């Protein structure tokens, strides 16, 4: 990776618009920042005097905390607005909410929103840098990047690996960003889940669809079950959690069909006993908590890079 490469993006809206050199730069930057979190004094002055606002229209614990910690470790001042406390509930439009925040001169706006494209919309309406923290069923780029980082860290590479993503692909912005990211970086992505939860033409995004979980997981280097949401039982997309667990839940036996050193990942939060058997979640193959740790480093890198990397 040449240190000459310049990051040309003002906003991080998705992995879709990032090139391979962009992604490599982000991963390398995150790797170099990771050590900061391990220090006794976990703070560097890189973003001192910068203001980071997290604007979340959907509940989130870990993503929001992760961005918050990342910003604070870089010495930025952080502020949080939740949908419940924002004026959107009073009938204010998204653009007006964002313009009002913009008028207070923040440097970065980190946005989570239930509508796909909401961050693109904001990026068009305001001048502040926008980082997408999850938009509808579209993308969750920081999660996709931290997944890439975690795999690269454990496997030393991404290219040539077999990645199996299991579950609700249709409604998962994580799956979406992961498919794009892993495919871009040269991995082979297999997806499986109830066919009701596999979106049309997902192959064109870079994934191979398997009707059985077993086909997707066999000889995989990475196995990633996705969270299945309770509403899907009523949609109707699946008959029951019980049946889902027996056909698409990752258990010890299924995991054994993957490569012996396969990594088990999960974007969290886990429904233990549904998409992931409890003993597997805590197995030595699980890198779920490494994902969380790397999330902070990735988010530090993203904020650093969108502000010009200085």
């Amino acid at each position, binding site marked *: 990776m040449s240190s000459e490469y310049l990051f040309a993006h003002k906003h991080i809206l998705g992995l879709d618009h990032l090139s391979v050199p962009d992604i490599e730069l982000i991963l390398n930057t995150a790797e170099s920042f990771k050590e900061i979190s391990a220090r006794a004094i976990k703070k560097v002055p890189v973003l001192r005097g910068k203001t980071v606002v997290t604007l979340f229209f959907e509940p989130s614990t870990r993503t929001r905390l992760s961005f918050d910690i990342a910003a604070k470790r870089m010495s930025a001042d952080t502020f949080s607005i939740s949908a419940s406390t924002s004026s959107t509930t009073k009938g204010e439009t998204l653009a007006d909410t964002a313009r009002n925040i913009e008028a207070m001169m923040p440097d970065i706006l980190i946005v989570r929103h239930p*509508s796909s494209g909401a961050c693109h919309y904001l990026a068009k309406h305001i001048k502040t840098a926008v980082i997408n923290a999850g938009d509808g069923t579209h993308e969750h780029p920081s999660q996709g990047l931290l997944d890439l980082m975690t795999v690269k860290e454990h496997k030393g590479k991404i290219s040539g690996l077999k990645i199996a993503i299991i579950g609700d692909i249709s409604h998962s912005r994580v799956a979406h960003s992961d498919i794009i990211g892993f495919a871009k970086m040269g991995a082979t992505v297999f997806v499986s889940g109830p066919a009701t939860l596999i979106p049309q033409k997902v192959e064109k995004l870079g994934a191979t669809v398997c009707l059985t979980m077993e086909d997707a997981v066999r000889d995989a280097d990475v196995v990633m079950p996705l969270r299945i949401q309770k509403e899907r039982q009523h949609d109707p997309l699946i008959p029951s959690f019980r049946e889902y667990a027996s056909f698409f839940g990752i258990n010890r036996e299924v995991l054994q069909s993957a490569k012996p050193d396969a990594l088990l990942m999960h974007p969290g939060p886990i429904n233990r006993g549904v998409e992931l058997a409890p003993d597997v979640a805590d197995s030595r193959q699980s890198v779920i908590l490494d994902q969380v740790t790397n999330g902070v480093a990735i988010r530090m890198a993203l904020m650093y890079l969108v502000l010009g990397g200085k």
Partner: protein
Amino acid sequence: MAMVQTILLKNGRLIDPVNRLDKKGSILLEKGRIKAIFSARQKTGPLPKKLLSFDLQGKWVVPGLIDMHVHLREPGEEHKETIESGTRAAAAGGFTAVACMPNTNPVNDCQSVTRLILEKAESASARVYPVGAISKGSLGKSLAEFGEMKKAGAVAVTDDGKPVTDSQLLRRALEYASNHKMLVISHSEDASLSRNGAMNEGFTSTSMGLKGIPHIAEEIMVYRDLAVADFTGCHLHLAHISTRESINLIRQAKKNGCPVTAETAPHYFTLTEEAVKGYNTNAKMNPPLRTPKDRAAVIAAIEDGTIDAIATDHAPHSVLEKDIEFDQAANGIIGLETAVPLALALFRKGYIDALRLVELLSSSPARILGVKGGSLGIGAAADIAVIDPEHHFILQEQDILSKSKNSPFLGARLQGKAVLTLCGGTITHNLLTP
């Protein structure tokens, strides 16, 4: 504008599909009617002194265009459009008549609303043909009063905007409408398949993370509608056809003698789902923009007559409904002021000739709706559009007369424009100097 008693439209290309006329000539209008038609070599004879004369060299003189599918939003959503603003947009687009859909607030489901619309339309810039609702409140439960609405001036019924889900209701509507000689228009959509959808279902919807509307949502209901029309023997008109398989079904049904007609909108033969990229809410409508294959099938259907008419589905929405998150944004785009250039593109590319073009935009809608117009017959009302096929322009927000500016063609280079429109002999739009 004031009505001038006598107007001479000189040296234009006169196109009248009803009389199979496509030749150079002049038209004399007197007292709001077509008084005489002269071929290029013919002498006009003595003309009155107070004569308004336009030299229309290189321009097309066609029967006033008729848009059989518009939303004028009045009553109830006057911030989007009014009968006044909508018909001004119509006139600017070469239209002399529009049929307005009943999904206003209140719904046009009874004679008092029909009357209100027609009262407002008295001072409008185009003829307004109200379309009543099929069901009370367009709720899909019980029949609206077709007879009274017809007496008040409605020309057709539809629950447009919402599909008639109940097949029995559609059957009864067709049967009952036949008593009153009213056209039934169907918005064909299986709502259980399209629910919450924001665009055509396919790779683009997957990559944008938007819930898709599969093409079968239209086709399943087109099949149902054709079956009901065939069974009852009553004429059914299918609105805004957008998919390849819908067209195959209609083509086959027509071959078998099913009493059906169909319209499509300019955006379905011009754009594909790609236009939605970047979360462009001005490319969001229902039915949604489809794939290149669907677009090609729509064009082929326009060529071979499977599609009878071009209607814009002019659906004004303000920034309040459009400048928001894509999945929250309202469906629909304006179309009155862009229909002519978009349809002319089909002519320029050689898909259709000039007669067919005018038929699609004027004669067919008149015939299907059962209203006057659509030809240049002597004695007919002077509803005339003059089109300059060489007029180049870039569509800009400030030039749009519709109250709403929700067009996917903003900023596009377009060719062809109505430069003079007369409705009953009154000039309703004029970019020319006499």
